[in-house]
Every structure is written in C-alpha cells, then in structure tokens.
C-alpha cells in the first residue's frame, strides 16, 4: 500500500492510529484560480522497467510501489500454481490521465503528443495489463472502473474468479493518481472542500482528493484474513449525486451481511465511505441507522489519506485488513482490534443520528468488519472482512 500517510503498511499504520493529517498540502497550480488541499504521495516512485516503458506513467508507478511490497508472496504463489492460473483485477478511475494531460498540452502547442506518451498509459485496461506484464501473470487481467467503488469491486471479482475456477489466485487492488481531470471535474461539481475534508461534521463542506495504491494477493483456502462478504447495488438515481434516501447504500450493506451469513450485530467496526460531502454523509448515516440496531464504532479514513476515488475501495479494505492483521500479531489471549480514529473537527452533525465515531485509542473485540464504497453514477459495493486465525 502507498498513500499520503506512507510507503508501506508499517509506515502507514502508526500514522493512521495517530489520526495524522499532515499528509495534506495545498496546490494552486492544478485548478485555475483555486488553492486546493490534496493528499499526494511524496518522493520518488519505482522506475518502470525499460521493456514496459509504454506503460510508464505516474499511476502505474504508484501501482508498482504497492506491488513491490507483496512481490515475494506473489512469486511464491506463481511457483505453486503456475503463472497462467494467476489473474489480475485492478480498479482505477484515472489510469494515466495525468500523463495524457501533459501529452495533450504539448499537442495544443506543437500539434504533436509528447514522445514518451503511449495510449497504454491512458486506456483503463492498461492498468491491469501493466500488472500482468510486470509480474509475468497469464490469467485473465482486466480493469474495473465504476468510479469510487472500483477498488472494492476488484476484490469482489477476484474472489469470484477463484470460486468459479478460472484462477487459483488473483492480484487485485486499485490505484488512482491526482490529475487535472478529477481535480477540475470535482471542483466543477462543487464537491471539493476549501478546507481539509471534515466527514460527519456539522461544518463539512465536501471532499479532499488523494492518491495512492493498494494491492492484495487473493488466494483460495485458508488465509489469516478472509473476504467474507460482498454486497452490491446501483441507485438509478443521478449521475453525480447519491440517492438521499440511502436505499442503495442500505442494499449494499444488507447484501454484504447476507453474503457473509452474519447479523448486523456481528460487525465490530465500520469503515465509512465518509466523503465529507453534505449528501453522502447524510444518506450513508441514514442507511447505517436502518441496517444496525446498535451502530458499531465507525470512522472515515478519507480525512487522513483523502478520497482516492477509484483506489478508495481497495485502500479502505487495506486499512481493514491492517486492523485485523495487527490484532493477529498480538500475543496469545483475547485479541483486540485497534481502530483508526475518525479525524475531523469534533463537531458531529446532530442530523446524522446516533453515530459512534471512533476516538483516538478506540478498540473493539475481535470480529467481522465492514467497509463501504459508494461510487459516482450510483454504484455501491460493501465488503465484510474477518480474521480466521490459523
């Protein structure tokens, strides 16, 4: 995993628990006439090998930075099952559009695209092809692009690919990178906050964009962490605003519980979609109140790493994975989950109902945890993860 909080889970985890918001900074060169808060990944990214230079763009370099961390585990699985049995499902909404922007700017001046630009960087399918070619995988490789639910859907599809026998393992995750298109687009939609995003606050004014990559190795059989439930829905409501009733969100959460064969009371932590827009947080909280008789501790991690759009579903599933995995590392005895605190200005919007927003140091007993991703265009996906100690 790589995001504004760090370059590895070991770097990210303590800053996540400390609700460290220092990953945000402002840029005034990306949306004309506006200073924008962003959560960017700092520093150098891995070099794309020369043989894959047609894929060389920031988005793929972020993916490579995340893949490096699990490369040896992937190699082990490839040795065991064969490269042709390992698939790739990646989510993205941006692919290499930031590099395409530079190419188009160059073309406006000179009639020519930049020499380094290749369509493989921009086309959405290239995000998955890059992973397959970098790792030498021969199973099916495709990209899901359903806006902010892309990353969650990638994990859902990975699990199904194994279940139907087309793959024995799948490299699945998602990457998005800061670019002119999404910053200007969401700015035009008046969805971006002037301050760093403030989810569930009475003072919330919108989202803050972030970037990063989170990738998983999904395998058959017994792993320490299981993807236990998937729930999905469409809204049929509006292209860029959620259904205020929260029915789509409710359907996704209920579907995930049903798929996991769990009751709402089994969920011990909920990672909110929590974008910090007026509409999202209101409809999400309304849906949560209907699904949960007693609302579990919740937090939005978008006020720490920004809204990473196409990557958000995988990023937040990654945070949930870390919550479970860190608890398994504890010495024998009743394990407790350390929860990422909900970072905001502390002024809960009373209209949002009985929310239990996780505070610094919050813990929960070992159990199943849920992550919500609700996409632009009305595309929702909820995941349930749990630890299965071996």
């Amino acid at each position, binding site marked *: 995993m790589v995001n504004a909080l760090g370059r590895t889970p070991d770097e990210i985890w303590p800053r996540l628990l400390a609700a460290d918001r220092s990953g945000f900074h402002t840029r005034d060169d990306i949306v004309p006439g506006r200073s924008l808060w962003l959560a960017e990944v700092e520093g150098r990214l891995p070099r794309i090998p020369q043989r894959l230079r047609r894929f060389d763009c920031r988005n793929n370099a972020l993916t490579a930075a995340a893949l490096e961390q699990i490369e040896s585990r992937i190699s082990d699985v490839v040795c065991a099952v064969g490269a042709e049995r390992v698939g790739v499902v990646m989510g993205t909404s941006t692919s290499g559009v930031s590099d395409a922007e530079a190419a188009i700017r160059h073309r406006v001046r000179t009639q020519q695209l930049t020499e380094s630009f290749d369509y493989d960087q921009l086309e959405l399918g290239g995000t998955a092809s890059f992973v397959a070619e970098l790792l030498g995988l021969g199973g*099916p490789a495709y990209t899901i692009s359903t806006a902010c639910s892309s990353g969650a859907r990638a994990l859902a599809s990975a699990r199904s690919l194994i279940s139907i026998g*087309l793959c024995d393992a799948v490299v699945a995750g998602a990457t998005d990178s800061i670019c002119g298109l999404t910053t200007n687009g*969401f700015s035009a939609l008046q969805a971006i906050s002037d301050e760093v995003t403030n989810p569930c606050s009475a003072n919330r004014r919108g989202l803050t964009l972030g970037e990063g990559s989170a990738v998983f190795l999904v395998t058959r059989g017994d792993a320490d962490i299981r993807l236990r439930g998937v729930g999905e829905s*469409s809204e049929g409501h509006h292209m860029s605003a959620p259904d205020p009733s929260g029915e789509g969100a409710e359907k996704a959460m209920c579907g995930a519980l049903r798929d996991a064969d769990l009751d709402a009371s089994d969920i011990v932590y909920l990672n909110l979609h929590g974008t910090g827009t007026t509409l999202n947080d209101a409809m999400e909280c309304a849906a949560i109140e209907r699904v949960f008789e007693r609302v579990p501790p919740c937090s939005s991690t978008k006020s720490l790493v920004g809204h990473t759009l196409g990557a958000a579903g995988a990023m937040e599933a990654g945070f949930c994975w870390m919550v479970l995995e860190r608890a398994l590392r504890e010495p024998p005895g009743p394990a407790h989950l350390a929860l990422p605190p909900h970072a905001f200005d502390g002024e809960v919007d009373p209209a949002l109902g009985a929310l239990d927003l996780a505070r610094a140091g919050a813990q929960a007993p070992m159990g199943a945890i849920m992550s919500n991703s609700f996409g632009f265009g009305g595309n929702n996906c909820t995941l349930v993860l749990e630890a299965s100690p071996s």
Partner: protein
Amino acid sequence: MRAAVHHWEAWAPGVEDEAAWRRWCADPKELEREGCPDARFLPALLRRRCGPLARIMLTTAFRCCETHAGAPLATVFASRHGNINESVELLERLAHRQPLSPTSFSHSVHNAQAGLFSIAASNREASSSIAAQQDTFMCGWIEALTLLERAPARPVLLVMGDVPLASPFAPLVDEPETSYALALLLSAAAQDEGLRFSIEGGQARQRRPRWPDALEFLRWMLGDTTRLELASGPRRYVWQRD
C-alpha cells in the same frame, strides 16, 4: 463455468436488426466507421447528454432486456475505450485553462453507461464497468460470470461496445475502427446446457481481427461449429457448446 445466452441484440451503422445481423454473420463485410441510433426510448433529458457510444450501448441494452421487463438484472458494461473521446475534449479544455462543465465531466466516466442504464431502467442491481485493452470482450464475459457466481439466480446483461478513437489517439491503436455494440442476456447454466468457457495458456498466435471480437462471437453463436477460440497475447479464450 457455464452460461446460457437467452437473448442478444447488436447494432452497427447499417446493420441494425436481427435479420440484418444474420445476413452479416453469414457473409461478413467491413463495417461502417460512424453512426448512431436515435435512442428514442430514452427520456429527452437523458438522451441529450448521451454521445454516440452511450446511444449505441443503451439501445442494445434496452432491446435485449425488453423480454425481461422488471425482473432483477445485474449488468456489465464492457468497452475498451469507453468515453475517452469525451475525456479528450475535457483534456483539451484543461490545456487551454478553461473550466469544465460538471455534466460533461460526470458523463465522461467509464461507468456513465452503467449509470444511465440504471437511471433509465430503474435498475438497482449490481453493475460493473470494465476495460481490458484487446481482451475487453472476453474479460466482459468473465466479469459477467463473476456476477453469476455471486447470485446464480439473477441473470446478467453484458453489453460490449466501442466507437472509433478521436484523432489524438487514433494513430496509436491498430484495431478495426467501427461503431458497434453487442448485448447478451446471460444466465447460469447447468452442466449439459449453455456455453462452456475456459482460458487456455500457451503461445497464442497474434492476430489482427477484421471486426470486433464481440461480433466474431456473435457469428459463432449463430453458426454451427462447436468451438470458438479468440486468442490474444499469451491467452486463448475458448467457448464450447455440446
């Protein structure tokens, strides 16, 4: 895993109904580059926002599920290029430091067709939008299988479509340039029914198809050979019927 095709609809300029497609499949010719249906079934407000790709994909999608009105239906919208031509216009505006229209931005995303279909058909079921370079149709089929795995009793509407790339990027891609869509209404099939799908490894031969893979699949589906192999890079995608 097996899936059965209950119904299909396709559209390309000049090949617009079942009879025309049966003639084309028996004697295929290069297809026209540009054109799009009027999509009168869409409410005027939605239709106005739809570019050629959305009109073509939504036309086949709606026709394909007419027989299935009202019942829950998951959807997969597969497109190699999606709405990239709309994105190019936005990128050119950015290059000139001009503001973007919020509506143009929200209709340029890859899942715009999925969103429009869900709104126009009041469909609340699971929906995915995918892309996979040259393998997009085959991976669309695979994604449809994953949705059948998650809910075997719920049919899946798979819609594959593309339009030719706009000028800045067209020279970078070698492929048949046509405007088209194919919609397939799929359901999970028992052991001796439907179409068996598998992926076989080995070195596939490189090929440059004369028409899109989805239409090659349609030709096979309407023909009488038992096996179809669509190869791409190191992968051979195989459909078989008994």
